[in-house]
């Protein structure tokens, strides 16, 4: 309601509180980073930027990163949307399993996933050798194609999860109306289904783009010297040869500008699709039949199967005998014993504690933001929205650094505590959840909420009792994604963690750094197991028909 006159009510209070939170935890650290970028020895100077644009090997990385991210986004959409369509419109066999597996595909921690791919598809990888032994020509995992391949398999489930929510929200009678006019099959999919889910498709595309853009592990391992932005930033901040904060901060600022442009393009595109759907008649999934049904099952299971390969390989690795880095013959539980000495239990409990707290914070704030933006559209709330989106366009390491710059000195010394981990993760994951919540919110017709108000419900309880449950699909898909992301988040945590606040993913990372791959595989496997467990518990308490993910 863009015309709603500004009234001072409970929502104004919420706005102000959110603003204060964001100013303190986000704007201030970013400000510190900016200062770092433009001051050399206390003097204002743009030398770092000058340097960046004077050397081709710096600025080429922009194009490389954008190119990869674009291609990955397109392919993720191309396979993610059909997957989700089959999942949502047909009763595929083993839907729950399919969904869980699909989520697991996104999960491997950076490095270890890409490393597993090398062991599978590298020059002397398992699969490569197998293909070669059949006398077939082999393809190389390295280079541009490899990065795209690995990232697409890792990121397409994000599209699936987003789209599942969007498909749930389509009112079936719209599809029927189209069909009654002769619009069917692929055509209907394009003109109606896709058009109605466009806001979600765009949100998903942006998400994948940003993830791909910020991915450090994959290009670092299989890029064959393909220089990308995150690698550049990472080296500047955390390289073994000492760090150049000044230049790294400047590079970060440039990265943020690039992603900001993409973000704005997406926002403009999305603004063309503002409409509401009142899904009183949700889609009723059909039984897949005949050849089509067979192909659908084939497509989904093969896709998930391929995407799961590195995870399976990691599980396998966790049982292999390792002498530190070197693989030995035979299987045992040695790695697990070793992992126990390496803070396994502390990692698990930290992971659960941090992810639950963070998730709670994120969901609450994201839902509030979504509401403010969609229903209380005004300058203040748009400012909040824009601010909350900032982390979207910031690589994780940049956020980590900003927090360190901001909160490592008294009286604001939060570093080294669980608190800072929660703050970092919350900041980093907030935009993703708030995007999906906003998309969900946009689809709810305002009259439903008005009905609640007219029945005497105070604004807040109308919101909690009616709006939030109706946003359900959007929120839950966002929350599930966030949960998985939080568990596997590494980049911002790497410089913030210590032994007291270590999590499973960071333990995986530490084990990799340590060269103990078997132990790393154990941590990765446990992470996976934990996630599966959480999802099963979640699915158990949710009626499958209401799994609006």
């Amino acid at each position: 309601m863009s015309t709603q006159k500004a009234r001072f009510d409970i929502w104004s209070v919420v706005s102000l509180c959110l603003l204060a939170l964001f100013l303190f935890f986000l704007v201030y650290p970013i400000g510190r980073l900016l200062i770092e970028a433009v001051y050399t020895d206390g003097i204002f100077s743009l030398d770092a930027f000058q340097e960046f644009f004077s050397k081709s090997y710096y600025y080429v990385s922009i194009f490389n990163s954008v190119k990869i991210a674009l291609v990955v986004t397109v392919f993720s959409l191309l396979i993610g949307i059909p997957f989700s369509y089959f999942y949502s419109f047909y009763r595929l066999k083993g839907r729950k399993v399919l969904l869980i597996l699909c989520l697991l595909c996104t999960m491997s921690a950076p490095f270890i996933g890409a490393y597993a791919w090398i062991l599978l598809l590298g020059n002397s990888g398992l699969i490569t050798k197998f293909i070669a032994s059949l006398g077939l020509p082999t393809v190389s995992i390295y280079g541009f194609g490899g990065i795209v391949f690995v990232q697409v398999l890792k990121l397409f489930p994000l599209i699936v999860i987003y789209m599942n929510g969007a498909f749930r929200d389509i009112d079936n009678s719209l599809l029927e109306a189209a069909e009654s006019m002769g619009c069917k099959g692929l055509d209907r999919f394009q003109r109606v289904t896709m058009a109605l889910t466009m806001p979600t498709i765009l949100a998903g595309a942006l998400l994948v783009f940003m993830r791909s853009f910020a991915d450090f592990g994959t290009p670092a391992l299989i890029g064959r010297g393909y220089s990308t932005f995150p690698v550049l930033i990472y080296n500047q901040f955390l390289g073994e040869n000492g760090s150049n904060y000044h230049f790294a901060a400047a590079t970060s600022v440039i990265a943020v500008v690039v992603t900001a442009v993409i973000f704005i393009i997406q926002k403009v595109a999305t603004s063309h699709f503002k409409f509401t759907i009142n899904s009183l008649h949700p889609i009723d999934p059909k039984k897949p039949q005949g050849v089509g049904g067979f192909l659908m099952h084939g497509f989904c299971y093969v896709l998930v199967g391929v995407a799961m390969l590195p995870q399976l390989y990691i599980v396998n690795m966790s049982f292999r005998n390792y002498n530190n880095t070197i693989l030995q013959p035979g299987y045992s539980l040695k790695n697990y014993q070793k992992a126990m000495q390496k803070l396994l239990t502390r990692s698990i409990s930290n992971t659960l504690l941090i992810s639950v707290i963070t998730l709670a914070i994120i969901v609450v704030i994201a839902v509030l933001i979504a509401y403010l933006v969609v229903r209380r559209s005004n300058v203040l709330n748009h400012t909040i929205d824009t601010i909350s989106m900032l982390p979207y366009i910031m690589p994780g390491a940049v956020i980590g650094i900003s927090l360190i710059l901001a909160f490592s000195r008294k009286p604001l010394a939060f570093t080294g505590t669980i608190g800072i981990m929660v703050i970092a993760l919350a900041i980093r994951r907030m935009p993703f959840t708030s995007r999906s919540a906003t998309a969900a919110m946009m689809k709810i017709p305002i009259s439903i909420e008005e009905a609640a108000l007219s029945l005497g419900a105070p604004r807040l309880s109308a919101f909690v009792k009616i709006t939030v449950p109706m946003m359900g699909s959007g929120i839950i898909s966002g929350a599930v994604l966030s949960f998985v992301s939080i568990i596997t988040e590494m980049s911002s945590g790497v410089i913030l963690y210590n032994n007291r606040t270590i999590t499973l993913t960071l333990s995986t990372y530490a084990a990799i750094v340590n060269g103990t791959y078997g132990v790393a595989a154990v941590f990765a496997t446990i992470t996976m197991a934990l996630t599966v467990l959480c999802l099963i518990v979640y699915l158990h308490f949710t009626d499958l028909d209401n799994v609006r993910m």
Partner: protein
Amino acid sequence: MSVTISIEHAIKKYGNLTVIPDLSVKIANGEFFTLLGPSGCGKTTLLRMIAGFNSIEGGSFRFNDKEINNVEPGKRGIGMVFQNYAIFPNLTVRKNVEFGLKYRNMPKDQMRQEADKFMKLVHVDDYADRMPEQLSGGQQQRIALARALVIEPDVLLMDEPLSNLDAKLRVEMRTIIKRIQHEVGITTVYVTHDQEEAMAISDRIAVMKDGVIHHCGKPENIYQRPADVFVATFIGKTNLITGQMSEEKGQACITVCGSYRLPFHTIRPDAVGHKEVTLSIRPEEFKVWRAGETAEGLKAIVRDSVFLGPNTHYFAQLESGEEVEIIQESEIDSIIQPGSSIVLTINAGKVNVFDKETSLSLMTGVKNSVELPEVGI
């Protein structure tokens, strides 16, 4: 192409709930066929089965001789107006109307023209480039109408397409629907809750209750000689009064309220006899006399009166305690005041008589058949 629709022994269940137990009906090519019935009786359900959007638990649906039970909705050649409009929220008014034309292999120009024509017909041409959200309820409904009509389908299915329009617009729209339907010869199945509309627009009407067709026939047949008490009460207002039928020289005679005795010439010969009957007397079939103006008749006391434009309704209580409603043409300043005593006489030629036990009509002239109408339309 023109289509005859045959439905045989159709069954519809939602889970354990049987909504349509066993329904058969034939709809002639080019016919304007209306489903009428109380809320929740299964009208939308039946319409959606014809369209192919609901599963069919039993029976066969045929278009001409082709069974369509398993034909995709998109391939049935139908146009549909949905009860909840189902306007595409992401498309402008024009795009909504043009939507179906894209599948008619029509040149762009002609498509635009056609869309323009229909938007004009339903008076939404001023809003062609607006988004549906910015329109009033009635305007949205008219878009749904234009969108279905513009494609000139073989079978037009409409679910309360005019429910949100005012009387003038309703009449105008139903005239347009009727005209297009007639010109193109579209077989049309229409759902409405408005009896007057059904009467005015339909070639035939099926009156349903709980998934069963109680009476299927021409509007005037249904109105004048309803097949059972439900139909009589559902179609138009009526007063049900209990009477006692007796036979006098092979002629039926009915006594109402103990004393008022009327000979009936319209009872089926085989139904004449001694039994309890239910009389259905429409409010306008009473004639009101001020006390004293006539001797024979039902004595009553006016309880209430409502002015309704051309007519005035009276609510009166008979001596037997039964309440009746009466409609008389309004006379300015001549409303009979509540409390007045009146005498009512009945126009026996119009009154319908039903067996009290079975509720079925005892009259001659009841025409009720789910088969194709004998004469062409």
